[in-house]
């Protein structure tokens, strides 16, 4: 039991970003404690067990994958900064993924971890656009997307300078938005560039055992470095005195004092801890509007055995226009993401013990949040079938359509309500608020944001966010370095 009453740094939330910040700080001798309300670490990238089966919460694939020897990319930076050997993650690459648009996915762009595949697909399917596409890629590569002080520019207007076919534009935006945009309809160009590199120029991979491998490594590094954590002990209040966060009141009623606070729980969520209508930032913060449902289907065989081929991830949309917005209904069935975790090239030909078929769609938080329990359950069942039906339009047809039901051994589904319940993110907003605070600064001089609302997204992004904020606000300052 940790009962110290003062820390150099208190971190709120034991997700990827909070743990990464904690590893940096503890490694360099800071007395640091992570406070986590839930009983398990991971936050938006955690896992849970039902009937002895482990389910990943957020992970479809780890983005930003590069092969050994490729340097200067986010994955390499985070491995170095956290002193992690890349073998510890044992990442296995995707086989192939697909962006499928049209009622049956008639227009498709395949991509793999070899960027040349996407480039040749664009050249084949959109021959008039390939020169513009190549210039867009050059602009993405030249974008200093991790600058903490970049001026926001609309990605739509920037991309349209190079790509003039609305269908290609929509097909490029769909995966990037689904995997990391907190903003409806558009993205900030720096965010677009981060995601474009993460998905297309770098790529997808996963550890055989999924997200818990990454968490295990982080927890072990943090422990070895001397970091403390208190689980099932969230922060109830941040007490501000003279422009500083001076004390934290914990869920168990205890209090601690601290020199610095790093909050990974989101900007609106952090502001609420200040109480009394206090402002976290000079401008009002609003929660994100985008949330998701996900169906998870466990199969008694690999998806390939159902005739579904080798696709790892399929981003689908049934029309030419792609609407990335909070749907009017509970779920938007027009678009979504299919993930078949069996279709990673696991080392030595290993196979996951069961087949997994996951499907994500945009959802409306209000449509789920306040339903009576009975209605909520009934709606889940109804939408489960509808989502699966929608997704199947984009997979090869089965000889006998009922084969999928016969192969199903278990199902689960999470909704915006589940997300808020287990991660504390208001409105079920997985990607947080639409406005990101890149430098992590708040109205309190020693309170900083990291994670989702700092704005580096994805698993690799989340860890880099924690690293950058720990470096920028705490380690560099005391090292006398540039601040």
């Amino acid at each position, binding site marked *: 039991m940790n009962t110290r009453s003062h820390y150099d740094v208190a971190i709120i939330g034991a997700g990827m970003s909070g743990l990464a910040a904690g590893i940096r700080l503890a*490694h*360099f*001798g800071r007395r640091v404690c992570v406070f986590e309300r839930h009983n398990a670490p991971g936050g938006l990238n955690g896992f849970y067990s039902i009937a002895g089966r482990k389910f990943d919460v957020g992970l479809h694939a780890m983005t930003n994958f590069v092969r*050994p*020897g490729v*340097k*200067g990319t986010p994955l*390499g*930076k985070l*491995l*170095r*900064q956290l*002193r992690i*050997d*890349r073998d510890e993650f044992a990442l296995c690459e995707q086989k192939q993924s697909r962006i499928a648009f049209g009622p049956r996915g008639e227009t498709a762009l395949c991509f793999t971890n070899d960027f040349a595949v996407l480039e040749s697909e664009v050249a084949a399917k959109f021959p008039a656009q390939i020169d513009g596409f190549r210039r867009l890629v050059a602009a993405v590569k030249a974008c200093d997307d991790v600058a903490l002080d970049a001026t926001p520019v609309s990605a739509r207007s920037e991309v349209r300078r190079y790509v003039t076919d609305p269908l290609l534009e929509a097909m490029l935006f769909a995966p990037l938005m689904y995997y990391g945009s907190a903003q409806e309809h558009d993205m900030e160009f720096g965010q677009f560039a981060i995601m474009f590199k993460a998905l297309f120029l770098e790529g997808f991979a996963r550890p055989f055992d999924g997200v818990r491998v990454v968490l295990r490594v982080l927890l072990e590094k943090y422990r070895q470095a001397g970091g403390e954590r208190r689980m099932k002990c969230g922060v109830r209040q941040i007490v501000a005195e003279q422009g500083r966060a001076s004390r934290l009141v914990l869920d168990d009623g205890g209090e601690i004092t601290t020199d610095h606070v790093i909050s990974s729980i989101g900007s609106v969520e952090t502001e609420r801890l200040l109480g009394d209508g206090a402002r976290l930032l000079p401008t009002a913060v609003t929660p994100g509007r985008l949330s998701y449902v996900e169906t998870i289907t466990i199969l008694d065989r690999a998806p390939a055995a159902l005739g579904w081929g080798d696709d790892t991830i399929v981003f689908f949309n049934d029309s030419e226009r792609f609407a990335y917005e909070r749907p009017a209904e509970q779920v938007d069935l027009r678009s979504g993401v299919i993930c078949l975790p069996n279709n990673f090239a696991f080392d030595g030909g290993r196979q996951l013990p069961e087949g997994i078929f996951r499907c994500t769609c945009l959802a409306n938080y209000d449509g789920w949040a306040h339903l009576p329990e009975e209605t909520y359950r009934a709606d889940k069942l109804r939408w489960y079938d509808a989502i699966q039906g929608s997704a199947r339009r984009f997979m090869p047809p089965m000889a006998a359509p009922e084969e999928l039901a016969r192969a199903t051994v278990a199902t689960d589904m999470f909704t915006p309500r589940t997300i808020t319940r287990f991660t504390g993110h208001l409105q079920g907003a997985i990607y947080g608020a639409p406005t990101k605070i890149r430098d992590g600064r708040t109205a309190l001089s020693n309170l900083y944001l990291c994670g989702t609302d700092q704005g580096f997204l994805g698993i690799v992004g989340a860890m880099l966010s924690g*690293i950058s904020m720990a*470096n920028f606000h705490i*380690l*560099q300052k005391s*090292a*006398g*370095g*540039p601040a």
Partner: protein
Amino acid sequence: MTKAECHKLVLDIISDIAPDEDLSNVKPDVRLRDQLQLDSMDFLDIVMELRKRHGIEVPEADYMKLANLDSCAEYLIPKFAAQGK
């Protein structure tokens, strides 16, 4: 501390920070940045590891003195001597 010992001490730090770099042929009189892929985050870590492991403080104004192995030795040996090493 000899120059060779100081080179080794710095290379030991770099090998922990950047285990994916090949350090077998680092030239002592060529800028580390020109032979290895080290960014500003990595240089900050060299400074912080010097403090953590050896109690040596390197103020920001002196970061340039860590440009190559020879300049590291020239700068660090007197600091170690001041510690009686």
